[in-house]
């Protein structure tokens, strides 16, 4: 960059070209230049349209029918929706899902934030550590769930129970008791998703101006006060993102539950999406399943919008 500077005279740019009127030969190119971004977007848009938007719209449409693939669908209007509102099993599943989402999201945000604080540093050994800690987030949930299923064997000589036994803690039932199954699933989810939240929090932490910390220390703030007064407020937009992502992820929890417990024991870990899955595959009632899915979509949109609106108000308060 230094090579460009000439000796003493300031560099003068040529006079700006006047682009207000039409220029011969460039009118057509100028008028259609805005098409170019749309052309770049078109393949992705087409992909999303075919595989995401259209199936979602079709699913909402199917919820108004008694779906029979070969014999033809029968119109039932809102019967599927009224069935959804009066189904006690679905209500229990909603309760489990909301509880699981709340605890797993809060837990993974908390643990993710702690990990981010610990591992936000440019040193190479910290980078290696960060990659290692991030590994659970990129493993396939099905494989992870199978491994945890084996590790959490509830007998005295299961892998985790042996470890606990060495500390004198009795064999815990983990997934095989309805009292601890949901809590165990929440722990597995926190283990898997906290590193993902950590990475987002690290990105947020890196973006905080170091001078704020310096001026806070000069004013006499200790580490805890710096955290409360500088770090947390600066992370508000990041926290909002992590919260919204977590909510969406939490409400549609499926793989962990399907592989670890299939909704059992005794229906204690049934979630909304496992109910939808069973309704479609076992009960052959794709119309009712679509109704539940549509309601889930509406709930997710409402919650996400509410979170964004609340954050918007807090920012501008």
């Amino acid at each position, binding site marked *: 960059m230094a090579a460009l500077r000439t000796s003493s005279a300031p560099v003068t740019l040529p006079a700006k070209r006047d682009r207000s009127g039409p220029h011969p030969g460039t009118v057509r190119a100028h008028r259609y230049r805005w098409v170019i971004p749309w052309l770049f977007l078109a393949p992705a848009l087409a992909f999303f349209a075919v595989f995401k938007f259209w199936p979602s719209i079709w699913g909402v449409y199917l919820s108004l029918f008694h779906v029979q693939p070969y014999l033809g669908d029968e119109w039932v209007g809102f019967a599927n929706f009224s069935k959804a509102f009066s189904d006690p099993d679905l209500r229990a599943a909603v309760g489990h899902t909301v509880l699981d989402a709340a605890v797993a999201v809060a837990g993974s945000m908390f643990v993710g934030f702690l990990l981010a604080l610990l591992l936000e540093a440019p040193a190479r050994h910290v980078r290696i550590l960060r990659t290692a800690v991030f590994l659970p987030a990129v493993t396939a949930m099905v494989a992870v769930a199978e491994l945890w299923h084996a590790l959490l064997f509830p007998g005295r000589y299961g892998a985790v129970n042996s470890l606990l036994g060495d500390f004198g803690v009795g064999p815990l039932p983990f997934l*095989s008791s309805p009292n601890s199954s949901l809590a165990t699933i929440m722990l597995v989810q926190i283990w898997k998703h906290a590193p993902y939240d950590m990475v987002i929090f690290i990105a947020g932490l890196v973006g905080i101006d170091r001078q704020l910390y310096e001026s806070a220390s000069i004013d006499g703030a200790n580490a805890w006060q710096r955290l409360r007064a500088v770090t947390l407020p600066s992370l508000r937009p990041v926290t909002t993102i992590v919260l919204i992502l977590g909510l969406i992820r939490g409400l549609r929890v499926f793989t962990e539950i399907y592989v670890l417990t299939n909704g059992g024991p005794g*229906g204690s870990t049934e979630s909304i999406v496992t109910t939808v899955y069973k309704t479609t595959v076992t009960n052959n009632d794709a119309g009712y399943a679509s109704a539940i899915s549509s309601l889930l979509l509406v709930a997710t949109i409402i919650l996400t919008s509410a979170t964004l609106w609340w954050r918007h108000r807090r920012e501008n308060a």
Partner: protein
Amino acid sequence: MARSAARHRVVAALAAAICLTTGLTACSSGTGGGGTATADASGPLKVWARAAGDSPKAFQAIFDAFTKKTGIKIETFFTLTDFEAKLSAAATAHDLPDVVFNDAAQLGNFKTQGIIRPVDKSKVAGADQLTPASWESAKDVQGNVYAVPFSAQANLLFVRSDWLTKLNLAPPKTWDDVAAVAKAFTTQDPDGNGKNDTYGLAVPGSTTRGYISWYWSTFFWQAGGEYFNGSNGKFSATVNTPEALKATQWFKSLFCDQKVVQPSSLNDTTTETNKAFQTGVTGMYYTGPYAFATMDATPIKGKYTVLAPPAGPANAKTLAEGTNIYLMAGNRPNAARQFAEFAITPEAQKLGMTAVPSATIVRLPVNSTVDAAASHNSDPRWTLAQQVYKDQGHYEPVSMPNWAQLRQTTSDALNGLIAKCGDPQAALTSLNDKLGSLLKQQGVAAG
């Protein structure tokens, strides 16, 4: 500027329309035309089977033999986990395959969906060679035949013979024996490693695919119970009888009082339960003859013995299952029928048993002229398996319009009962009500 903004909107709308039409064309029905009831459409016979791993090779052996014999080419499709979903998609597109190999338990379901054709036994060559029991698994609630049986099996009791020897126990012959042996296996350290890490009975107690009720059915019938009572397409649920209570109390006590079942049972499918038996975590297991090959491939080969399931208070019935050949509502009914006729011949049944040793797609032959043991190096376990199927085999009520849904409800109830170690009578009464309302939904309720 306003003009280009308006043009922006027009093109955005066009782009959305293009996306929509792309989606619509992606959704439109596939090809399906041609063929009447008497004349087949042209093209190869489309055969689907729910299989993975080595099983497709065994199917291919039968298909190749059929093509060699008749000249009819076969176009195959195999998948395991999402078979019903793919079949549903084909049904929606009115582009069904011509022949499907699937569990007998799917018969009522397929018939309710309208995707299978009734079978005229008199027009199927070789139909009289098949065992009567296998034809029962191919009928609907009215007694009309809707499939051609292909393979059958019944559960046997696998016991660790080395553990029996070490603890000086005789092979169990009654329910009390089973409970006593299970207790001994759990408390007396039969593998001699000084740790209390063994259990008596391996049970797949998960609700996945209805495993727990699938397993419990044997004891339910052995106590004299039956799922449904009725005839001519009208049934009532009968799972709250004293016989059902006796079976359920005994089953529950294994988990809750005696604690002789592997502790992870309530979340275990047959995959985990197989492992529990193969790795010496449990000492007894009710499973089918298809397990001989898989068990023999593990370190317990030669260390287990296979018995006929011990009798319960009323009888010695044991769970029987089968694979059927479904003739789908496709466009090549004559070729499909010819294929079914070939698949039940001794040649095809033997191929199914022996073509691929690790994948016996025919477990017990449905053709009564074929001897299973003869095709398995005169292994006496296969003779026992064939005899148990003949004498003790009892199918689930697969002819119900949606047996999978009824089985799932039963599994949920049993899994819930054992998870909380609750009251069996209350659980059975509530289950009976639920089954009754499902029968009504399925249109086969009496009264």
